């Protein structure tokens, strides 16, 4: 039986190689048909490497590439990798997928900015900003799912936190209190989710959906009833960007990573903190044990229920920071349904990142990049309707989920209520 299973696995792996190979060839074809064909010869693409305000130590020259030859080169790279996959089938397709994705994005940008100049640093910086709520949502997902509670209510938690941050911030004129209140409100919803799924053993997808509907209804209701009537209740102000000394003066990296507001730095800290906690502490070991094999953990004296409650509520606190970012971290105002699916995209980032903080953060940046395309490309007057550019993050999410799932292994007990015997 083991041999048969092994053979079946090989057949599946082989099929997958051919599938990825064909996908890479398609990408090459896309570049040829859409980008190469519409680019006249002799144009250059310039990428600006300096921030708008010159704060870096050294001023870099723009990166100027000849548009058409670069596009041909990128198409050739994709075609070569596709052929390689079909002929040989490399064992880890991950790096090849990464290269092809990078080639496609690069080709797209070179094409979009052909004959013009585009500020690459600005683009990357806005990608990071748009990745922050997605990453925090993904961290929330990791905390919950490592303890085997599926949390699709991240969206609702972030929406509530965004509302509470705007509201409390306007009343107290203190952004820190607003942030705390946002985290607490989100943690409160997380606690409801925890009680429903752990105590009442409600299907976790259903209980998550309930919280999403409830959060949408409650925030829209209160917003219509109060925030829209009393405008001064919806004017919390925002965290101002802080340039980190020295770090912000590094060319490219400085303006992209170290000239943001405090929530961005909190996200960096959480990234490291959750990674260390999850993989190098007793709490992390217990969490992962509860997520993989709750019965064994229980037998060894780990309190499965308590671990799950704690993790889900911790996740709620983290999602609350992500929600607060929408209002007091960026626009300084609450709008109905303003999270626009970022919580769900965060879940996709978590899956794409294989339930690890660094993986999730990296994939959040990809989604953030897809999200920032729309605003940046409109400036270049790309002949694509803005609606299609706005679709990008959602399409990327679907493609990523379809491509990665099955290869990414979730915690073994994910989504299953635990019954003590």
């Amino acid at each position, binding site marked *: 039986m083991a041999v048969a299973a092994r053979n079946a696995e090989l057949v599946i792996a082989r099929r997958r190689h051919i599938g990825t190979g064909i996908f890479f060839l398609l990408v090459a074809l896309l570049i040829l048909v859409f980008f190469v064909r519409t680019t006249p010869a002799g144009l250059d693409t310039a990428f600006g490497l300096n921030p708008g305000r010159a704060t870096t130590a050294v001023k870099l020259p723009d990166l100027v590439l000849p548009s058409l030859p670069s596009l041909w080169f990128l198409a050739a790279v994709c075609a070569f990798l596709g052929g390689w996959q079909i002929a040989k089938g490399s064992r880890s397709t991950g790096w090849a997928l990464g290269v092809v994705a990078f080639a496609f994005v690069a080709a797209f940008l070179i094409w979009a900015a052909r004959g013009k100049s585009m500020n690459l640093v600005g683009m990357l910086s806005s990608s990071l900003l748009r990745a922050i709520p997605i990453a925090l949502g993904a961290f929330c997902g990791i905390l919950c799912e490592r303890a085997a509670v599926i949390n699709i209510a991240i969206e609702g938690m972030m929406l509530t936190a965004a509302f509470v941050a705007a509201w409390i911030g306007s009343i107290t004129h203190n952004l820190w209190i607003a942030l705390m209140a946002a985290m607490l409100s989100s943690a409160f919803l997380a606690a409801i989710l925890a009680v429903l799924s752990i105590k009442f053993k409600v299907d976790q997808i259903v209980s998550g*959906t309930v919280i999403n509907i409830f959060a949408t209804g409650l925030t829209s209701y209160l917003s219509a*009833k109060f925030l829209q009537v009393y405008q001064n209740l919806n004017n919390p102000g925002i965290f101002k960007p802080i340039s980190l000394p020295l770090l912000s003066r590094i060319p490219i990296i400085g303006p992209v990573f170290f000239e943001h507001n405090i929530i961005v730095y909190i996200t960096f800290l959480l990234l490291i903190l959750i990674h260390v906690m999850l993989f190098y502490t007793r709490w992390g070991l217990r969490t992962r044990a509860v997520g993989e094999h709750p019965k064994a953990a229980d037998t060894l004296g780990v309190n499965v229920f308590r671990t799950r409650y704690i993790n889900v509520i911790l996740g709620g606190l983290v999602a609350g920071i992500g929600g607060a970012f929408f209002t007091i971290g960026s626009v300084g105002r609450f709008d109905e349904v303003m999270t626009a699916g970022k919580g769900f995209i965060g879940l996709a980032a978590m899956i794409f990142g294989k339930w690890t903080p660094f993986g999730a953060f990296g994939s959040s940046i990809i989604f953030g990049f897809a999200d920032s395309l729309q605003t940046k490309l409109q400036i270049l007057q790309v002949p694509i309707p803005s609606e299609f550019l706005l679709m990008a993050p959602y*399409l990327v999410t*679907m493609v990523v*989920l379809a491509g990665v*799932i099955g290869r*990414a292994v979730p915690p073994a007990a994910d*989504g299953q209520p635990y019954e003590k015997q």
Partner: protein
Amino acid sequence: MSEQKERASQNNPDTRAQALARLLLRPARGSVWQAILLPVLAVFTALVIGALVIVFTDLQVLNLYKDFFSAPGKALAASWKSIASAYSALFKGSIGNPAEFAKAISVLRATGDAAPLRQAFWPISESLVTSVPYIFAGLAVALGFQCGLFNIGAEGQIFIGALASVYVGYSIKGLPQYIHLPLAFLTGAAAAGLWAAVAGVLKAKTGAHEVINTIMMNYIAFLLSDWLLNGPMKRPGYSPISPAIQDSAWLPKFFPDPLRFHAGFFVALGIAAVVYWLLFKTTIGFEIRSVGANPDAARYAGISVTRNFVLAMFLSGALAGMAGANEVLGVNHQLASAFSSGYGFDSIALALLGKSHPVGVVLAALLFGTLRSGATRMQSLAGVPIDIISILQALVIIFIAAPAIIRWLYRLRLEREVGETVFTRGWGQ
């Protein structure tokens, strides 16, 4: 996971298949009374909590509570007045005002003028008109539930169905009604079905969870409809509205204005009957329900799980598309952006309330249609934002999904449900 699978395969598959058959074919247990009690109590409790929300967000009432200990009567009376005005506006807006009925009948007797009577019947006509998309969308979600699929994409599918049927409705000219109307209606259903089937294929082939995919496709559908209504499908002028459909594509109306009641209501009831027949009287339905009850056992019994996922998603999407087609052909006769405003999302609560059974769905849809059209009136008369409906829905789902709460609240001994649908099988298994 692997250990569990091994353990599952050690169980004798024959007995599991038999258990599955018993589960699906078992006669309804428990009395009708018990089956009704829980949903009724759930709705009642939700309304009570909704009343609390209305009171505690009413600033005037809250101000009175400051002097609660000196003048408790005042605060309580104001609370009662706040609740009563909200819920009576809800009632008048959804069923009608009894006094108005009486007056209209006396006018009709005296002068033979039926206009006031029509005006009196207007709220109930509106409630029925609002129920129709709910019936379709509720059936869509319920059919997905029966196959163990959680279709949160009904809202997007409604948009796709509406886009397709409005296109057929305005672009094809000169067809007789008996061809044009069904053509427009079924095109909407088919387009939305194919749209939803994408999520089914992705689940079947790659294991990507349909919840995330259908939500992503919602956003894509909204953006697609924005683009179409601002570009290719825009009527001459400034606003993003499609051209009006041909008269030959209208669902027939029975009464003069302002009564908007139309034939879509009967179509919806007919479709509900068809869904019942399909689910419970045909092999297709048996397969769909088997996959929903236990995919592993279904697979062992020779049922193709992947094919049923795709089929159920297609049918579910087609039903949601009918909701969109119905709104276009029966109510609006054109398509403006953001026309659906949440029928698809509400239908999740509705399908759960109706226990995923067509009869239950129709009843729940009538309730939701009544609530929603009443809530519009409540917003204008009592200043209670229409979003209170979402809060009520979330509460209803909680109480239906966690019956233990209702049992505890009312000290009831209800029979524990068996064979409840399970959606959480992790990501992609």
